[in-house]
């Protein structure tokens, strides 16, 4: 196991290196003089521009600039906001808990709905229940997050007045955004669980288990579910990535002060250092999530031996 973990981490190094290069180059890939990115829409004289070029080290060779940027990033310094002068890292640290809370709540809701709908559809294969379940899944994956968010607000906050529409803190403010974020993933999870279940239900060991005379209930719980849910783990990382990035939209709509909301704000305000720093941070976080998923997968699936 530790050998597999080590090789998995080694494989990640080139990817991580390339991600840092790409994020660093964002400044230079944008059209026009990089200095203008820092000046924004303000008026400036050539002298002022030269001074900024000097101060920001933009006149130095690219690889030196990269090493400086990464050296600072590794010490937790991602620069300061061009708008508010607040350190980017401080903003990330302040807002991260809200985004993590939302993402995991969404992942939880998506898993509960998606897995149970998928199981029911498979057990009632080719009946009206299956058809309805798959119609639900199709509608789920066809619902843009912003649309389901607004519908939930309209129904539960405006019409029924049972849940608050905006803000953060407490379970009652978490339910609507997390559910909106979960619906799409619930749809794709339901489809995946269903096809995985159907595959396992047709295998010989299920027939053997049934022929031993145990109840169908125990066959399903002990033999089918355990095998059918293993491949589902692989897409949990994908779903977590989706809920993390979907937070960009839900946090904006539900006025939750998380990373996603700040990210959109920074893109709109052209607050370059914030966009760059948060991009780097989120990408790194997502790489870690994927490693974690691979490790969990290797751990729970006895058929996989990586060494």
């Amino acid at each position, binding site marked *: 196991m530790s050998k597999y973990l080590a090789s998995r981490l080694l494989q990640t190094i080139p990817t991580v290196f390339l991600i840092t290069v790409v994020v660093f180059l964002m400044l230079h890939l944008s059209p026009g003089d990089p200095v203008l990115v820092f000046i924004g829409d303000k008026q400036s004289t050539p002298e002022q521009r030269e001074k900024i070029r000097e101060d920001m080290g933009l006149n130095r060779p690219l690889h030196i600039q990269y090493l400086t940027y990464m050296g600072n990033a590794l010490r937790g310094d991602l620069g300061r906001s061009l708008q508010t002068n607040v350190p980017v890292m401080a903003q990330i640290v302040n807002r991260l808990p809200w985004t993590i809370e939302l993402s995991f709540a969404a992942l939880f809701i998506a898993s509960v709905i998606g897995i149970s709908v998928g199981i029911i559809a498979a057990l009632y294969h080719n009946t009206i229940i299956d058809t309805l379940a798959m119609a639900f899944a199709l*509608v789920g994956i066809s619902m843009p997050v912003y649309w389901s968010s607004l519908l939930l607000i309209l129904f539960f906050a405006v019409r029924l007045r049972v849940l608050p529409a905006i803000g953060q803190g407490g379970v009652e403010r978490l339910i609507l955004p997390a559910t909106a974020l979960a619906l799409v993933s619930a749809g794709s999870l339901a489809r995946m669980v269903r096809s995985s279940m159907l595959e396992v239900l047709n295998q010989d060991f299920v027939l053997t288990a049934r022929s031993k005379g145990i109840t169908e209930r125990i066959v399903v719980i002990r033999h089918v579910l355990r095998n059918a849910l293993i491949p589902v783990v692989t897409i949990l990382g994908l779903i977590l990535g*989706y809920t993390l990035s979907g937070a960009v*939209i839900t946090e904006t709509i539900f006025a939750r002060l998380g990373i996603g909301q700040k990210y959109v704000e920074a893109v709109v305000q052209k607050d370059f250092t914030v966009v760059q720093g948060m991009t780097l941070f989120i990408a790194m976080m997502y790489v870690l999530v994927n490693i974690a998923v691979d490790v969990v997968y290797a751990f729970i699936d006895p058929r996989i031996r990586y060494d």
Partner: protein
Amino acid sequence: MTNVDATPAELGHAQSSKGSRFFRRVLRSRNVVAGAAILLAVTLLVALAPHISPYSPTEQFRRNRLQPADAEFLLGTDNLGRDIWSRILYGGQVSLQVGIISVAIGATLGALLGLLAGYLGGHADTIIMRFIDVMMAFPGILLSLVIVAVLGRNLHNVMVAVGLSSVPVYTRVVRGSTLSVKQFDFIVAAQALGGSSWRIMMRHILPNVAAPLTVVATNGVASAIITGAALSFLGLGQQPPDPEWGLMLNEGREFIRVAAWVTTYPGLAIMVTVLAINLLGDGLRDILDPRLKL
């Protein structure tokens, strides 16, 4: 579909061409027929917007602000007194365009990279797939956001951003299929006859990976429409006063307590269109490539 898995009964119908057999299967699939019919209706309505929309999408009827649906305004008016039905028709032109153009960009680039990676293998494969890994480290809408942030905010960049961010999906599907097609005898024969790599990729491999590519690209249009509208929703794509479905949703958000229709109708437009495309894509997948799991 090749003849490899044809039953003797099917082989008896040798006179019916591959094409007509394909079309019969298409017509038998309820998903494809329903999806295509809805999509055709949406496309027609949107394409005919200049002829059938009752008002200009930007004309403001100041005395009829936030008016619910009636005979004069089919779906009501928004906060500036603009006709929502007209704005949905015109806005759809933008949303559909974003969907199709960005998939064209993403599928072309992605398929090319997938062919090169799968067919050439070795270093080309390693380099391309590392590059794809990097892109995949930016999940979901994030990659489009990053690209728009770098290129600047406007509708053209939205199409480029959504297109580029979908490249990994196409590259992975085409690479996978190329790897299996590459093993076939006719490819080995073409190589033995001295065909250039480019020619073999374009003439022999591409047609054989077209089926999975079509399926993925069809569902790709749906997600491109969603992402494109999301970017406009966030204020990064279409700019006011011109209509676009995502932008309309955002504009109506403020008035959801007093005039829900301003948001519900454009949202419904997106959902119906996306649902139709997904139905079509699912149906095509069942016909073209039953083993492909998405």
